[in-house]
């Protein structure tokens, strides 16, 4: 299939289909369900939700996925990267199976969130924004999850841990033995 706007073969699609056929089919099906057209401004309205879905499916947004989204939505690759690199939620690096996010919003910060971050860093041997070599844990920080009464707060995947102390860090990690 070739792209309407530039006539280029969809190389990204071919490549992705070889690497990840199931995930790619799922993403393409989602994109096909969107009300896309030749109006790039209108397509822009679908960009965030497409990237959101793509990251849910692939776990991260590798270059080929960005390229596929670029071709289908007729938005340049540079602009898509601009969006990905703007929102801390999106990542173009593979991330661990479990996402640890330490809240560093005002309340958590005041309650000593940086000490929690440091403890995770030393226990896992990685920095913020990185994934452990065994791909098990990703360590990130975010600003406020809306649970300030439980500060400091740590989220691992969808689970919220409240009133976290540096001593609790090893117990939290022990919850994820897969």
């Amino acid at each position, binding site marked *: 299939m070739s792209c309407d706007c530039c006539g280029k073969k969809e190389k990204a699609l071919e490549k992705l289909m070889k690497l990840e056929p199931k995930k790619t089919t799922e993403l393409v099906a989602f994109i096909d369900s969107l009300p896309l057209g030749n109006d790039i401004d209108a397509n822009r309205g679908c960009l965030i939700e497409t990237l959101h879905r793509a990251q849910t499916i692939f776990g991260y947004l590798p270059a080929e996925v960005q390229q596929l989204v670029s071709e289908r939505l007729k938005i340049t690759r540079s602009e898509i*990267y*601009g969006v990905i690199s703007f929102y801390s939620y999106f990542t173009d690096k593979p991330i661990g199976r479990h996402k640890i996010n330490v809240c560093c919003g005002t309340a958590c910060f005041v309650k000593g969130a940086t000490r929690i971050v440091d403890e995770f860093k030393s226990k896992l041997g990685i920095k913020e924004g990185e994934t452990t070599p065994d791909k098990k844990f990703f360590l990130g920080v975010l600003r406020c999850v809306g649970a300030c009464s439980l500060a400091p707060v740590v989220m691992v995947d969808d689970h919220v841990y409240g009133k976290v102390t540096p001593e609790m860090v090893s117990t939290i990690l022990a919850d994820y033995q897969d």
Partner: protein
Amino acid sequence: MTMVNLKINDMPVSVPEGTTILDAARTLGIKIPTLCHIKMDCLGVEHKAGSCRICVVEIANRPNLAPSCCTPVAEGMVVKTNSLRAISARRTVLGLLLSNHPKDCLICAMNQQCELQSLAHEFDMHEIKYQGAQTEFPIDISSGAIRRDLNKCVMCRRCETACNVVQTVGVLSGINRGFEATVGPEELKPLLETSCTFCGQCVLACPVGALTEIGYKDDVWREINDPTKHVVVQTAPSVRVALGEEFDMPAGSITTGKMVAALRRLGFAKVFDTDFSADLTIMEEGTELINRIKTGKNLPILTSCCPGWVNFFEHQFPELMHMPSTAKSPQQMFGSIAKSYYAEKVGVKPKDLIVVSIMPCLAKKYEAARPEFAPDGVRDVDYVLSTRELAAMIKEAGVMFSALKDEEYDNPLGESTGAGVIFGASGGVLEAALRTANDILSGKDIKDIDFVAIRGLEGIKEATVQVGGMDLQVAVCSGLGNARKLLTKIRNGEAKYHAIEIMACPGGCINGGGQPYTGSNLKTLEERKNAIYQVDKNLPIRKSHQNPSIIKLYNDYLGEPGSQLAHKLLHTHYFAR
């Protein structure tokens, strides 16, 4: 037209609805300083990102200051452009910009042409108020054409407008966040790894030294001073009508004779003309045009002289790659003839013959470095200097340009016609081809040779022209955004043409990325264009096939246009990228 009444600095003014405060103030003779804002008249767009905040003004009953470049006037508005609050806000903004900007103005390529430097001067800034962190982006020189130093970027995003809106190349975008925010391609890739065409419109748009050209002046000085080398130079058509601006001559000054004299003073062994090889291009491309018209196959023919345009279709329209003429550009034709025909004639080995080009263009730097243009590893064109670099060399050598007496080009590669020189303006290549095709198809020496319908600075020009008793549908397109429009129509089968000329830069080479900076002044561009046609008018021979040196080149060496040798030396092929 609805008029809006307001007061700026206590002076009443009435302006059409939709006018910005900035423009309204200008009608009163009030200059509000700007940095990111620019009316890119030569590109037909106004850039008002409102990102720098230098132009903020105070508006009564509005709590925050407003960016005047993108705030429209309103009825009864009361504006103060020079209140203490507005002025100190501007100074703070400028102070913050300077905080994270290298202070190497003395050795910056944009020294004395930098808009940030001028602002600092106008604002009378004498200290760096905020000492803080400095960004550390690597400098990109991967392309050999455009130098990117994002540590100097002020996030005005003019380059984005030039690249995305005007040229529709779409390589640049605002990326990252906070202190790391900048403008660039995805992952901040080196430009060579992107679909950049190196047209250089971003370089013309950049107010600071973030996007500049990669220079080869020092290499050229070294070659000129190497006694084992025979160094020749070729000058592109549009350089002669723009070079004078660098020496305070009025826009549109025709400086051909002075330029030739200056090049001799710099020490070039021979001063030749790209107009000669432009004539040669017409012989080859014109023959191809005639063949395609006669057989009715593979129409339209697209011109292939512009390297920015070649890069564009290789990246963006690979499925139309059979359409452009296979003729090399005049720069490359010159190089291959110099290193074969001329080298044999003067008995110099190709590796000891150094070909330097003076071009209005940055993509020409990339073109000359393409591997297919270096047979046996010896480049056909060794170095490409821009119009600006030539001016810098002349100044460095202490040559008083405006006092020079006119001199003539050397022969044989310096003889040219009016058809060659008009390559420098949009429409010229096609007009030159039509002049020759008309004569060849009709077998006459036709006197009426001015195809005025395809002249001018409009982005897309279409015409039906009478050539050899036939009606030909032709189009001329300048600016890659316009090229995209036209090519999309062709691909969808919505337009039928016989021949199309395409130039990457709006208006053609006179507005090339290597030309003197004009601040996108349309008047200057008009003057350059008029000068090109004036040079054409002044020349005794105005058709490529009547150039005596071209006739001799075919008789003595190449045989006829499209011959086997001509194909080897003067034609090329393209690569889908």
